[in-house]
């Protein structure tokens, strides 16, 4: 550190930036850890089937697996385009017994 640095103001702390970025990515990755591996493929295939009948947006399908006591619930929601005034509609909901 020289005489110039001594008077120059420091840029924003990089450590706090690192911590904030990590906090977000770690939380995101932990949330994904318990999820079954087949979800992305399942989502894509369901999207293909639906698109045979309705032209939905690729982002219109939302899949979640939730733990409900001993059983796991696979929740699938599809947002259908226009026509209907309500954008989102539950297209299907299936409960499966615990796979673990």
């Amino acid at each position, binding site marked *: 550190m020289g005489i110039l640095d001594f008077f120059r103001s*420091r840029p924003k702390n990089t*450590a706090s930036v*690192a*911590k904030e970025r990590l906090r977000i990515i770690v939380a995101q990755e932990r949330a994904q850890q318990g999820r079954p591996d087949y979800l992305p493929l399942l989502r894509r295939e369901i999207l293909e089937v639906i698109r045979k009948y309705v032209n939905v947006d690729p982002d219109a399908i939302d899949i979640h697996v939730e733990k409900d006591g001993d059983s796991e619930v696979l929740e699938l929601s599809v947002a259908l385009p226009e026509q209907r005034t309500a954008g989102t509609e539950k297209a299907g909901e299936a409960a499966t017994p615990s796979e673990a």
Partner: protein
Amino acid sequence: MENEQHDPSRVETPPLPVPDASFPSPGRTTLTEIIVVTSGKGGVGKTTTSASLAVGLARRGKKVAVIDFDVGLRNLDLIMGCERRVVYDFVNVIHEECTLKQALIKDKRYDSLYVLAASQTRDKDALSKEGVEKVLKELTDEGFDYVICDSPAGIEKGASLAMYFADRAVVVVNPEVSSVRDSDRILGLLSSKTRRAELGNGPVEQHLLLTRYNPDRVAVGDMMGVDDVKEILGIEVIGVIPESPGVLSASNAGVPVILDDTSPAGQAYEDAVARLAGETRPMRFLDAQKKGFLARLFGS
């Protein structure tokens, strides 16, 4: 100026602990504890840590085996300084090409310390779960107090086998984004892909060990501090090893850095071993060196 501090007020060496009745905790004196040293990311100091923990525990009179799981890229032998005495290796034992006794290399410094080298010639598929289990069982039967498993980087076969049978895990992490993220991934695997997790025998006890810690950079906000890393990963910290020239000198010489009592890194490893053994010790080397006004003005 590097982080090595020779100010006598900072480098007070703790008196070498005499093995006492409280260690290991009563009731588990006859058990073998399997400790994996892992990280996900490469180059963070797993082998340096494995070597120092093994030496530290042996120095306390414990019977210790340290195993290199990095098949194809062995290095523990170099860090331990026994590379010229490797005749048989871990894979030879698993494939029954020699006995375990033939493959264990006795340390020249401590009678109760043994090294099991990785194979340099085979590929990583040479390890099998059954083979590893057989070796660990034999070490248990031989009355070893500790088996340290030095994991390779990554999350492939060698790394997953190194952690599979563990009772405890030391996750080595640098205060740096990619290392912290990889450590979190490893923590997830430790709580799902281990024998303890599969059999429901309680969790693998997890500890964080920070290495290459630079208190000066933490002080000015250029490096995440120990509390930041602890907060993100959510597990307890068993040691903080300051960045120190002693680490390179030690690996150059093939003498685990814990044996360098003058190096802050060596002292910090000794503290970590004490904590691993259940002692309480304050963290040292966390504070930046105080620089005088003139030193700051004219650089150092």
